[in-house]
């Protein structure tokens, strides 16, 4: 069984929502669509107050290089263009829409038929992805068209589809593979064509036997799609680790996957690519897992962006359980704790995870006993305990010399620390401070 070179941990899997079929989420009344739902600069609103918009209509235009188009996930009237506090309380530019009915753009193919043929040239595929505002749905929301615009001096050799879903609890990738295997394979074929690579590898962690079987059966019907079962080990789905597991190649420090001839996309992204290219449907919704040990029912929803966390909670469980400690957007290892439940979901949201207070509260920190568990767990071969001490004493340049920027923030160090030191918090702080020092030096 293939796996990555070093480190890694085994968190409790808790995949309790694997059996929940993807449901359509009901339409809310008013929504705020954030203009920066992706990595990079915010999109520029291209509608005005009072305008009528349809589902799939372009409302935010990408003007900067690192940016993605934003389309309206709802039909209705633009109420105002203002700032809106996101799930973490930070004010972001947003377009408020009063939802009226559910009227879609005519160009979008809403029939359930599967369209297999794609006659577009690679350049046209990338352009269409840009137009449709497709971004990576693995969490980083990197604009897909930028990833697939390969610089002329680089050459892609491998396309890797990340269906690992190594985060505990999350099941959206699991469900999308179970229910949309063919669409995914068509999407992968399109991406393969866009890159011009012979083979695409779909990496799936071995704790998902059903999706592996479904995907293997479907991939057999397609040319150049190989399903690769991987060992269950966190962070198998981290980009560098996945490349290492599947190809044996190592992305060097400070380099990108394309520097070793690899392009990695999430399985959800390939489904979104299928819909964008074949069905003309822009990226307006995502599959969200709503799960938690203390919840009565587990769900997987098709949720349109802009729906607030409170609305999802209200629909899925009424109110949060009394002993809720934390609500997390994303998985428990790398997700972000939501502080403002009135905040809207964005393209990057993959789950609403409700953690009980017994698990959510951090145990008290004690002295480092130099057990080396953090070091052994680090998939990048770094020394988290050392960073912790250096950052605490603000010896940031030394931390930089020990390659603090190589950290992928997977959280294995804090997860395994018996002294409960907030290692990743300190490393993140150190990375921020070190980046500041580097910026100042450049100037």
């Amino acid at each position, binding site marked *: 069984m293939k796996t990555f070179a070093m480190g890694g941990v085994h968190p409790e899997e808790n995949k309790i929502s694997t059996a929940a079929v993807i449901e359509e989420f009901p339409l809310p009344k008013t929504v705020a669509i954030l203009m920066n739902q992706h990595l990079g600069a915010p999109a520029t609103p291209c509608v005005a107050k009072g305008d009528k918009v349809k589902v799939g209509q372009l409302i935010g235009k990408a003007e900067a290089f690192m940016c993605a188009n934003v389309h309206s996930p709802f039909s209705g009237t633009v109420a105002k263009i203002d700032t809106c*506090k996101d799930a*973490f309380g930070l004010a972001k530019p947003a377009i408020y829409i009063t939802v009226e009915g559910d009227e879609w753009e005519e160009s979008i193919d809403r029939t359930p038929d599967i369209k297999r043929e794609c006659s577009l040239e690679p350049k046209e595929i990338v352009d269409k992805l840009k137009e449709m505002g497709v971004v990576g749905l693995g969490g980083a929301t990197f604009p897909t068209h930028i990833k697939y615009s390969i610089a002329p001096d680089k050459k892609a050799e491998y396309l890797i589809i990340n269906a690992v879903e190594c985060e505990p609890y999350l099941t959206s990738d699991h469900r999308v593979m179970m229910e949309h295997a063919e669409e995914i394979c068509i999407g992968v074929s399109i991406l393969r064509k866009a890159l011009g690579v012979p083979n695409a590898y779909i990496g799936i962690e071995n704790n998902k036997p059903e999706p592996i079987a479904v995907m293997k059966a479907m991939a057999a019907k397609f040319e150049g799609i190989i399903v690769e079962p991987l060992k269950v080990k966190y962070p198998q789905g981290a980009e560098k680790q996945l490349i290492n597991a599947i190809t044996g190649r190592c992305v060097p420090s400070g380099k990108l996957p394309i520097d070793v001839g690899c392009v990695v996309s999430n399985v959800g992204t390939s489904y979104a690519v299928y819909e964008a290219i074949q069905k003309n449907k822009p990226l307006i919704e995502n599959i969200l897992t709503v799960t938690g040990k203390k919840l009565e029912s587990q769900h997987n929803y098709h949720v349109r962006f802009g729906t607030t966390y409170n609305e999802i909670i209200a629909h899925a469980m009424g109110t949060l359980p009394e002993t809720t400690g934390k609500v997390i957007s994303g998985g428990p290892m790398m997700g972000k704790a939501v*502080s*403002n439940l009135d905040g809207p979901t964005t393209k990057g949201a993959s789950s609403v995870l409700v953690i009980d207070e017994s698990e959510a509260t951090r145990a008290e920190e004690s002295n480092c006993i130099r057990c080396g568990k953090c070091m052994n767990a680090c998939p990048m071969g770094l020394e988290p305990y050392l960073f912790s001490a250096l950052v605490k004493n603000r010896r940031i340049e030394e931390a930089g010399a020990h390659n603090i920027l190589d950290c992928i923030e997977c959280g294995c160090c804090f997860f395994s620390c018996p002294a409960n030191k907030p290692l990743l918090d*300190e490393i993140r*702080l150190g990375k921020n401070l070190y980046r500041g020092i580097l910026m100042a030096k450049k100037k």
Partner: protein
Amino acid sequence: MTEIWSAVLVLSITGAIFAMVLYFVAQKFKVVEDPLIDEVAEVLPGANCGGCGKAGCRAMAEAFVKQGNMDGLSCPAGGAEVAKKVAALLGCTPEEKEPQIAVVRCNGSCANATAKTHYDGLQDCAFANSLYTGESGCAFGCLGLGNCVRACQFDALSIDPETGLPVVDEEKCVACGACTKACPRGIIELRNKGMKNRRVYVACRNKEKGGDARKSCSAACIGCGKCAKTCPFGAITVENNLAYIDFNLCKSCRKCVAECPTGAIHAVNFPPKVERPAAPAPTAEAPKPEAVPASNNQTQA
């Protein structure tokens, strides 16, 4: 006897050899340095606070001596007294500078800006600031995790457990500015101490619209502009829904304090005024400027 003599002889010879080696090494690697640097370094406070912008007091002394005068260089920690001594050593006249003090421009105490979430991460303002808005939901307010307190070399800052805000000890603060750099939200500002330590300032940094600002904190500046209209000296400007009082223009008349609807403007160290209940009256423990108006605002709100 021979043993004694041989021991004495061996030790003397080795001692002499080492002495010679040391002498030659000392000569060879001698660093010629202006003795004035030592003298200047001697009169500097020696706290290495970095308030001057140099790496430490020694580096500052070198800068003084290299420049030969005090133009553009000043030791904020040492103040006028040190400046006088340095000037005497350098043979120049010290720059006149108004004495300053660190001022905490936030009134988001536990009572005014109630916690909407519970922060459970690293106790470091810079990290919490990169993570989210903070417990109160105000993205501009004090996080209360004490980076300024840790940055202060003079023990002049402490977190008031009741309000969760830093308190400046007016006796100890030397206005070195270390805390202003340590605060990730730029809440602490160096302002003129003012006549008899009396000063007026806006204790808020919130640039959101009035309603949003009030949602996270009852003592927030809502940018209504009443203070700017009232001010007879044009010292107050309102920008991005936030008022700011220019301490060079302010004459401490306190008209704005009475006008402010949320109590965001603070006046400290003034004698109590009976006829104007709106003005926050300092209590006996005067050097607690932040803590005192907090209770007053409660009654207003």
